[in-house]
């Protein structure tokens, strides 16, 4: 199947007072229709630029961006505006029109499309019902909570029947509970309407909850991409590792003294008492620094951070053994304190 978004070798640099910043460095990726695709990275990694290059709010310097079969970089301004109507965007700060009621905010894209007022209002009410806010239709954005504002923004995007929704840190200004409910709403929209969703975030928890695929961005480069489970269990780059680990408790870092590994359990390996076996087999104890079970899109994945015994040979054997048992094993080199 033809991917709905295909980016090839895209580059974008900005010139600032401090010099040139490469926001996108030869980026290539594809997103399948109906996917929920996460793009994660720390601030300054180039996430916002990347997503803006998909709807040409930023023009790439070079490379190709094909959305739904159309080369976006080659479109005239008029054609581009047509294409943008099929890709809604939601933002960290919601970007609602503060002087319009909730209903009139949702009508906004319909006005752009030239729909009659009565028809627009009817359609807007339906969209507000979808996001569960029809009773707030006559309120002004200032009277709503953050979560409600984002729901209005989502309703507004839905009004233009988009094929794609681009979400730029849409939950970053919200508390964890509200984040969860907004993500559930996006998931429902994806499932029921088949809308492809691209999610930009710096939070692993967001990726974990709803994304099917994820790409890791670091300093303008896409360093890693794959299914969420793959990246979570076998991160290949430091950038991915940092994002995953930093989503655990912050205090662990200080506890690393000796060589430490992060192990992950999937479906098959959860039943075996691996830690007990390791201790018995090698006659040396391991110290459990952290253990957790995460929900990766409905699948339980366990993770642990272990501190290994002092002996280098025992350490290597232990790691080999854990790998052999089918566990994801990942050395936390960056965190070891060599004194």
């Amino acid at each position: 199947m033809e991917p709905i978004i295909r980016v090839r070798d895209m580059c974008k640099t900005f010139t600032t007072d401090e010099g040139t910043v490469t926001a996108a460095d030869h980026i290539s990726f594809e997103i399948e229709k109906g996917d929920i695709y996460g793009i994660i990275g720390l601030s300054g990694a180039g996430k916002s630029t990347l997503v803006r290059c998909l709807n040409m709010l930023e023009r790439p310097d070079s490379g190709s961006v094909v959305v739904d079969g159309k080369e976006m970089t080659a479109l005239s301004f008029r054609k581009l505006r047509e294409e943008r109507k099929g890709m809604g965007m939601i933002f960290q700060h919601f970007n609602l029109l503060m002087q319009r009621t909730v209903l009139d905010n949702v009508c906004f894209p319909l006005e752009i499309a030239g729909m009659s007022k009565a028809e627009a209002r009817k359609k807007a009410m339906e969209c507000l019902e979808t996001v569960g806010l029809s009773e707030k239709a006559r309120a002004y954005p200032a009277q709503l909570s953050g979560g409600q504002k984002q729901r209005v923004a989502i309703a507004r995007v839905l009004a233009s029947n988009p094929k794609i929704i681009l979400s730029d840190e849409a939950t970053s200004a919200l508390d964890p509970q509200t984040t969860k409910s907004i993500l559930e709403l996006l998931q429902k929209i994806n499932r029921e309407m088949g809308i492809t969703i691209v999610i930009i975030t710096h939070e692993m928890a967001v990726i974990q909850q709803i994304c099917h695929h994820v790409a890791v961005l670091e300093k303008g480069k896409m360093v890693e991409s794959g299914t969420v489970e793959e990246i979570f269990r076998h991160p290949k780059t430091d950038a991915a590792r940092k994002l995953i680990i930093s989503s655990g408790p912050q205090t662990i870092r200080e506890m690393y003294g000796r060589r430490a590994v992060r192990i992950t359990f999937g479906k098959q390996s959860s039943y075996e008492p691996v830690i007990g076996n390791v201790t018995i087999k090698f006659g040396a104890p391991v110290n459990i620094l952290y253990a957790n079970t995460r929900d990766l899109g409905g699948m339980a994945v366990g993770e642990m951070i272990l501190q290994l015994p002092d002996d280098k040979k025992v350490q290597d054997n232990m790691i080999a053994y854990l790998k052999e048992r089918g566990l994801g094993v990942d050395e936390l080199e960056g965190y070891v304190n060599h004194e």
Partner: protein
Amino acid sequence: MSDFFNQFGGMLWQGTLDTLYMVLLSTIFGYIIGLPLGIILTITSKEGITPRPAVYRILDVIVNILRSIPFLILLIMIMPMTKVIVGKSYGTAATVVPLVVSAAPFIAREVESSLKEVDKGVIEMAQSMGASNGTIIWKVLIPEARTSLIVNAAIVVGTILGYSAMAGTVGGGGLGDIAIQYGYYRYETGVMMITVVILVVLVQILQGIGMGLAGRLDHRK
């Protein structure tokens, strides 16, 4: 007291009407020129929705030049032009010309600063939905900035009122004219004080209307 009003009341009333006529007309013409100019300054600036550095620079310079000429000097400077437009260079109608020339660039700057307050994110939202620049101007920039536009309009009217009084010194008509004629040339301090009181009351009323309207139309609270 009643003698005073019998003697000067009619004249003061006429002066007030003349002043209001000048101010109202100048404000309307000022906005007819200044509003589009302010919009063009906003959208052609570097952060605008359609950056046009050359256009911006030219308009920016013109506005700055006109803004830096003191009103009284401008009034005298453009008298030949006033005469061509109105047919004479004194009186209330003639004062409207320099008032407009002076107010338009001032209004353009006020409009520009109001429109620049509109959140960039909201503009980006409109662009992401495929809005044209015209749609962004009329459906996003102006409605979202309306509170600030109205507050600034109240300031504009107050300023024009002040200028119109200044025009009185060279036969501009209205309350300013009366104040000069009676207060300065004839030592009728009472008349001058009354014109000042009327001017203060007018400014208060206009400010009050502006602020009240702005508050009622603001839903950002």
